[in-house]
């Protein structure tokens, strides 16, 4: 690990089947609360191989009503909590004894409907990316989208330019202009592949049991056909769930979330406008004061009196601080994410609808 140059970027992420299953189990168990965990593995020639994972301890909060928000906030912040860092180190120490790759390579989180671009996620990934060997990823598993067909598992990293900006902690208009950072550049998505071990491949060939090879006698009647143990189970792949027509709930949910994001965007813009207005007011006051002082000085000069200092305004007036644009950036990234999600849904729902139409109206 150490002899690899620090700046060699990750090109792709390869996940073991075991990790996929573990993440799904953990996420489904805690849904709709966010579940988080740690990933271990190693990096080989720019490909990050994730070979095992373990969940972080769930936060023990009495399940009283109204505490839902705090609980999920705590869960979302779990990857960078101090107690979990010790938990993680301890777990990795134990895993090393049974020959599991003992390098931490990132963390995973579950989400619902692509609603994951937020400050928590950024802070977690920043925590991992700055502290450790810097080659770490965040895996995002979308529980709701996975339930509707194909698995949604994506790997993200923070871009170097965003890391630099986040380190300084300044997201003002000026700094953004200087760095040229745009909301599209916050996260870099890495292609994800799933990899099976030989034993797992062997297991999958038995799952579900294959249709019998030899010729079977024809069933005498319908009841026997339906109860025949030889009738094969539907195969795992392809998954016929993706043929399901009811996609409207997903579209609707995404629209709701999209509206929420616009709402947030609007609030942020208002904050900004407020800032601009108060800045303008302060500046007007300063100019007025400066002019007044100048006139006074001119009068004093005429009266041969000592002049008053002209830079006193810096003590008298205080310019308002510009609100951070980070929220706006993240929100924009989130909106982009939703829009792409809607695109994806539309593509599949329209193809399904055309299929249904031509099925019901043959010959058109």
């Amino acid at each position: 690990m150490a002899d690899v140059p620090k700046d060699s970027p990750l090109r792709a992420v390869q996940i073991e089947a075991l990790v996929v299953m573990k993440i799904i189990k953990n996420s489904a168990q805690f849904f709709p609360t966010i579940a988080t965990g740690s990933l271990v593995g190693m990096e080989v020639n720019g490909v990050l191989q994730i070979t095992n994972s373990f969940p972080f301890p769930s936060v023990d909060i009495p399940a009283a009503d109204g505490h839902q928000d705090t609980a999920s906030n705590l869960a979302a912040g779990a990857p960078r909590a101090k107690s979990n860092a010790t938990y993680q180190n301890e777990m990795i120490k134990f895993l090393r004894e049974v020959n599991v790759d003992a390098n931490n390579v990132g963390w995973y989180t579950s989400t619902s409907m692509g609603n994951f671009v937020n400050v928590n996620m950024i802070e977690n990934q920043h925590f991992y990316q700055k502290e450790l060997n810097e080659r770490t990823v965040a895996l995002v598993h979308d529980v709701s989208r996975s339930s509707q067909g194909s698995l949604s598992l994506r790997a993200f990293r923070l871009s170097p330019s965003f890391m630099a900006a986040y380190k300084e902690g300044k997201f003002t208009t000026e700094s953004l202009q200087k760095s040229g950072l745009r909301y599209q550049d916050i996260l870099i998505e890495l292609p994800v592949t799933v990899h099976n071990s030989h034993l797992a491949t062997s297991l999958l060939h038995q799952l579900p049991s294959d249709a019998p090879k030899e010729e079977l006698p024809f069933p005498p009647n319908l009841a026997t056909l339906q109860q025949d143990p030889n009738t094969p189970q539907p195969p795992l792949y392809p998954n016929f769930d993706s043929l399901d027509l009811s996609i409207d709930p997903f579209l609707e949910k995404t629209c709701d979330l999209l509206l929420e994001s616009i709402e947030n965007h609007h609030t942020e813009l208002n904050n900004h406008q407020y800032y601009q207005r108060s800045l303008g007011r302060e500046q007007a006051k300063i100019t007025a004061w400066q002019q007044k002082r100048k006139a006074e000085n001119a009068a004093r000069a005429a009266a041969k009196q000592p002049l008053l200092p002209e830079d006193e305004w810096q003590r008298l007036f205080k310019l308002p601080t510009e609100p951070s644009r980070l929220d706006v950036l993240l929100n924009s990234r989130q909106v982009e994410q939703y829009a792409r999600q809607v695109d994806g849904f539309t593509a599949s729902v329209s193809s399904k609808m055309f299929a249904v139409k031509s099925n019901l109206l043959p010959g058109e």
Partner: protein
Amino acid sequence: MADKDSFLHLARPLGPAPVGAQPSTAPLNVVIQPQAIFSILDHSLRRPADQERVIGTLLGTRSEDGTEIEIRNCYAVPHTETAEQVEVDMDYQKQMLALHLRANPREVLVGWYATSSELNTFSALIQNFYGQQGDGTWPHPAVHLTVSTVPGQDIESRTYISAPIGVTAERAADSCLFIPVPHELKYGEAEKSGLELISSAKDLEDRSQPVMTDLESLERAIQHVLDMLDRVSNYVNNVLDEEATPSSALGQFLMNALSLAPKVDAADIERDFNAHIQDVLVVSYLANTIRTQIDLSNRLATAALTLGTGDALGGEGGAGAGARDGEKQKGGDRRNKGRQQRAQEA
């Protein structure tokens, strides 16, 4: 997997054991979740080169009466085995259990696994350790799961519980009777999509598969359905040409399937279809417009000052206009959603 064994569970007088400390040997059902099996296989791949089998602890849930056990999770425990003795790292097992329970407080210790089908004296010893009072599963029986990992053969799994056996007191610790119990592998709805992706790589040479988009998996599913339809229509044609043996049961089955197709008026379909497709397309169009608006708003917000001469307010006005436009879209979106809901009601 090897689920087709049938079992006859006989109640049997138990061996000599102190009264009141009788572990139950009642029959039970074991359900295994696939991720536990994947974990075991991974452990088996990572075993030390000189070790035949490796063992680990099974975690899961137990129904209240103790007759249903669900194995949800497991972890590896290092152990060494020679011809004369076996050594299990008890400390490791205890500490790892504590760590796992912190993350999954609802899971309990249910037993242990080994990666070979063989049952020997050491198995009995370990089984008694897992089933003991205190740290073990007592008063419930410990479940022993064996998963064979012989290369070139099917992976075979078996589950056992144990009963004490009547031997001399000094040999009681390393002897027990393994009673096979039925088990099955079950996967839930949530795991289906994951298993789909994993198993799509099973026939590939490099055993890896990129994550598919929704559309790709839809295409594959449709392709598969078309293939199956081809097979069926091929068979039906062959029957018609008197080349294949007809079967009334199959015919009936096909008839039932075909009669499921709804009878709807062509005009109704046309109307509903058009209404719905318009809704969907409008939603997509609006989503993309919003994206553009947000992009524009961001660019205006950061570009304003580069124009020089401090007309930041003008720039902000532009951004504000962007937001107002956004709101207009929002209104449109709401209207559209209302329409969508109406369409659903209709």
